[in-house]
């Protein structure tokens, strides 16, 4: 038992934690924006799958890691247009359309994978990592925490940008109004539909980025169903974090650590406890709900379509 808790093991564990956390951070931040604006985006999982395939295909086609990320974001946003058209503009049931998007995107990406890659099973070259000078030299923790592809740092930086922008501009106020009392925002001269549409498309793009990160940087391959419920975890993170982007980051890191620990222990040959470790983050969420659930209220207009002149 002891020999597995050596330095390379810890490095792998921490690297894995950050790599599993990043898609959750990206998708969670997007969902947070969408939920604040009053749109529950259950289709997040599907948008991640679409982004994962797009990112993988683009990188495989020679566009590089950044090209892959860009493609993932664009395709994620494109899928979210369905949500915009059906739910934001026409006011259809967000949960039904969300489930439809997730099912459809999961199925279509699986079929595409079957049509394109099922004979060759291509694999991407491992994305190049950059060791942050100084920090990565910290013993034990350094290599795992601070040796990553720059896209990882960019992803974490985005979270800071969100936090800054919410606080320093009208964006936070406008989103909160669209989610809490859309007619007040409308009366103040801001287009509710446009605000919500943009929020939903940002969520789609962020989910697409998250999916692309999984495929391009995380694993280097594309497998059907590869997001494995990450979209739902991101939704939960966004709900619990409410309007605080940094909470999304914290929660995602916690989840990432547990996911990574599972893999690491499996590699270490310890079979049974992994089921318990897998359970930990979800148990943690339940504990949080039991303890602080009373305060975890959702935006008043969440899930409700907005039409001018109706109450």
């Amino acid at each position, binding site marked *: 038992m002891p020999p597995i808790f050596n330095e390379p093991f810890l490095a792998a564990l921490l690297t894995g934690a950050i790599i599993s956390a990043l898609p959750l951070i990206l998708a969670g931040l997007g969902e947070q924006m969408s939920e604040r604006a009053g749109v529950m985006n259950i289709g997040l999982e599907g948008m991640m799958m679409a982004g994962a395939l797009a990112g993988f295909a683009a990188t495989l086609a020679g566009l590089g890691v950044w090209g892959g990320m860009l493609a993932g974001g664009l395709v994620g946003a494109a899928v979210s247009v369905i949500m915009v058209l059906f739910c934001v503009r026409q006011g259809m049931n967000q949960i039904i359309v969300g489930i439809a998007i997730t099912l459809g995107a999961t199925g279509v990406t699986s079929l595409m994978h079957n049509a394109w890659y099922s004979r060759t099973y291509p694999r991407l070259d491992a994305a190049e990592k950059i060791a942050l000078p100084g920090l990565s030299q910290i013993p034990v923790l350094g290599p795992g925490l601070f040796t990553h592809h720059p896209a990882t740092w960019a992803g974490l930086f985005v979270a800071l940008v969100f936090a800054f922008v919410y606080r*320093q*501009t*009208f*964006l936070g*106020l*406008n989103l*909160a*109004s669209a989610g*809490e*009392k859309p*007619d*007040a*925002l*409308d*009366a*103040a*001269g*801001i287009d509710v539909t446009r*605000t919500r549409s943009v929020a939903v498309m940002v969520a789609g793009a962020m989910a697409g980025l998250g999916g692309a990160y999984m495929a391009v940087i995380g694993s280097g391959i594309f497998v059907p169903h590869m997001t494995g419920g990450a979209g739902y975890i991101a939704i939960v993170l966004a709900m619990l974090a409410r309007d605080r982007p940094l909470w999304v980051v914290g929660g995602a890191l916690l989840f990432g650590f547990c996911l990574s620990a599972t893999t690491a222990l499996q590699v270490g040959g310890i079979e049974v406890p992994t089921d318990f470790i897998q359970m930990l983050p979800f148990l943690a969420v339940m504990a949080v709900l039991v303890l602080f659930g009373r305060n975890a209220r959702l935006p*008043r207009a969440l899930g409700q379509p907005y039409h*001018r*002149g109706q*109450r």
Partner: protein
Amino acid sequence: MTAAPSPVVSLREVTKRFPGVIANDRVSLDFFPGEVHALLGENGAGKSTLISMLAGVQRPDEGEIAVDGAAVAIASPRHALSLGIGTVYQHRMLVPTLTVAENLMLGAPWWRRPALGGVRARFREAAAAFGVSVDPDARVENLSLGEQQQVEIIRALWRGGRLLVLDEPTAMLSPKGVEELGAMMGRMKALGIGIVFITHHLTEALDFGDRVSVLRGGRSVGGIAPETLTALPRADAMAEVVRLMFGTGLASAEAAEGGAHVPRALPNTKMLEVVGLSGRSPRSGSSFEDVSFHVRKGEIFGIAGVDGNGQTPLAEALAGQIAATGSVVLDGRELGPANVALRYQLGLRYATDDRNGEGMVGKLPISTNMVLKEIGAAPFWRRGIERRAAIDAHASALFAAHDVRAPGIHTPVGRLSGGNIQKVLLARELSGSPKVIVYSKPTHGLDLRNIEATRRRIRETAEAGVATVLISTDLGEVLALSDRIGVMVRGRLVGIVENGPEARLEVGRLMAGITEREAA
């Protein structure tokens, strides 16, 4: 106030049509600076459409709106604001989770930086000018409805507004709130702001309006100019307005005011006796304490008081909707713990004022709503399985007896108008053999015809021997209908008054907090 010669905003022959209805039919009106222009009309008279055109939400099909004499097409709510027309709607338009200052800033594109400090200072300035004290950093959800309205008025005039449109501004206010609103309007008039005061209460129109206009069936049917209004005795003005609103039809000025009280001889049987009742509503958090009173057979016991002084939880406790300590005795029987179905069955009924919110399930048919408080009981259910024929027969009988206007008993209640929903609600609560009925604000939100019908129904059932508890914030209504009147202040029943010529004064004193003990 001397009215300035030229109007700020004029409507010229404005017409607005919706599929099947002409909401506004060649309406011409002038709004002058420094003047309160009361606009009266029943529900459906076209008031809302008029407001939405002034606010830039809708555009007239024909005719024009002129600002300072020049015709303009008001393109959007924002355009209306920039023209100096600010609108305060009946329902609040503030984001509850944001602060007052944040609400005032709302409306900038997302990339701009909010300038909180400046807004705070300007808000304090404006608040002082209008005689209002609200903290700009308070979260809106923590303010009273009156305070929220004050914030909305300030916001409506934020960009130098010159015409303020108030849609039924008194509907949700306590008498104190109404008083404050009156004072605020006085200050605004002095600053030269024109005010459009929309209401369907004629007393309010006469209390606050310098000029009164009446809308009926989408048309402007006339009004009273300021010179005439000041010269005319109040009763004559009232008669004139009633004539304009209803033509020479049914309603007299007195009916509109609720009618006069006629003393009656009552049997001495106590039908309902409440002793030391205390309770608290988990939903609203408001409570009442140590309330004791009795109601005799056939008597109407009015409970007067400003909204939010514990009347609603008291009614809910009587109905068995919330738990309470103390004793409630119905016709000699102690009722024990809360149980709506049992109390309903025994004849203790509660007609709620929140008809759409809790009284009815909008998506269910009229027939089901008629038996909502008897679910599972015979003859409508047998061994837990519904018997549609029995339910339908019951509903059809009530449907006819209460003159509900709807295609049939299977129409979902949500499709009915407010007046018809009230009929269904009363039909349910009055069906079978009621002994005691608790009414909560029974005429709230109804138009005059339905107000009159409801009051007649209350009188008739009382005359048939039903003990009645009438909770109302409309003092005129309580005085017109009740035999005795209790007054609630801060959750306590502070006094009970026999109705009579002196009752109004006495109830007023109790409401103001002057109990006999203190006066002595």
